[in-house]
């Protein structure tokens, strides 16, 4: 039983790990912290996996647990030493058959998102991931009206940073 659960978890998570990587990228500023947060997200997902009933998609459930970890559970690790900054984050993006304008836009977008506060980061992230307001408000536990109000403010803030 435990073995089955484990196998299922590993395949679910392996296929959706990009979600966690994106969250780590917006909530941390260097590779060590990225790995640290990623590890904590993995631990929390596995710990709570028995509670995942499958009545929602694994990815939907994962957004919630991963964001909760980034916003409320994760504490900056003290062993984090200053290593390379994400300004050279581009090394991860393969330039081949990839539009350069989009690459630059993506870089600017990430650095603008990092300037937002933790809650705004979550809102913008879910917006970029094309989540409906219903899901956004359920994930954060606030009313859908408030999610909209706050989302508009976060978008304005983001736009100002992107296009001063």
């Amino acid at each position: 039983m435990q073995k089955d659960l484990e196998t299922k978890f590993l395949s679910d998570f392996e296929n959706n790990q990009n979600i966690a990587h994106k969250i780590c990228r917006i909530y941390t500023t260097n590779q060590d912290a990225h790995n640290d947060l990623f590890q904590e997200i993995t631990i929390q997902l596995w710990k709570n996996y028995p509670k995942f009933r499958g009545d929602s998609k694994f990815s939907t459930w994962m957004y919630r647990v991963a964001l909760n970890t980034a916003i409320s559970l994760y504490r900056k690790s003290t062993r984090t030493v200053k290593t390379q900054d994400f300004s050279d984050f581009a090394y991860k993006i393969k330039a081949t058959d990839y539009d350069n304008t989009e690459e630059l836009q993506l870089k600017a977008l990430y650095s603008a998102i990092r300037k937002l506060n933790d809650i705004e980061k979550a809102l913008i992230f879910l917006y970029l991931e094309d989540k409906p307001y219903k899901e956004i408000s359920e994930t954060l536990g606030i009313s859908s009206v408030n999610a909209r109000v706050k989302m508009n403010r976060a978008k304005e803030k983001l736009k100002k940073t992107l296009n001063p």
Partner: protein
Amino acid sequence: MDLLDNYKKAWSNQPEETNKLSAEEIYKMAHSKSSSIVKWIFIISILEFVVLNSLYFVIDTDETYTEYKKMGLENFIFYSQIVAYAILFYFLVMFYLNYRRISATDATYELMKKIIKTRKTVRNYVLFNLSYMALMMIVVTVTSINTNLNALNNKQIILIIITTLIVTLLILGVLWLFYQLLYGILLKKLNRNYKELAKLDNPN
């Protein structure tokens, strides 16, 4: 909205992470030790319960008991300790129940409320304990003045009262500062994010 739409397109076209983890690496990670804030709260809270209660073992020696007996306080000490232990038990149960309710699958706002509630349970216990200690100090001082009333002049009585007050306030003050600092560091991020969400919930 067109500006953001452009960026959104770039976002959805972003390449997958190149440093992807294999199932084996994920397995290892999933079984490693968590260093989440909830875990820290749990450890620190347990330490608080242990430290505060082991203080009594240091204070409660046979010698102090004989002193209490001399002052006729043994009944008061006995019953107040029973009450204190009952209250300790109540707080431990509440703390454990609140801790168990914390779940990363909750909505963000709910999760924060539960973490803060758990932390507050321990804070209330600490407050109770500090008040209990202060009360003890006052009762013992008042009684010892009473029993030695004839041997003391007014000046000495006032001196004892002032010294006790200063010492009590000093101890409480230092402990209070220590707690503010501890909670401040531990819960800074959480409190900030909680306020941000709470502000959303009550926009006025």
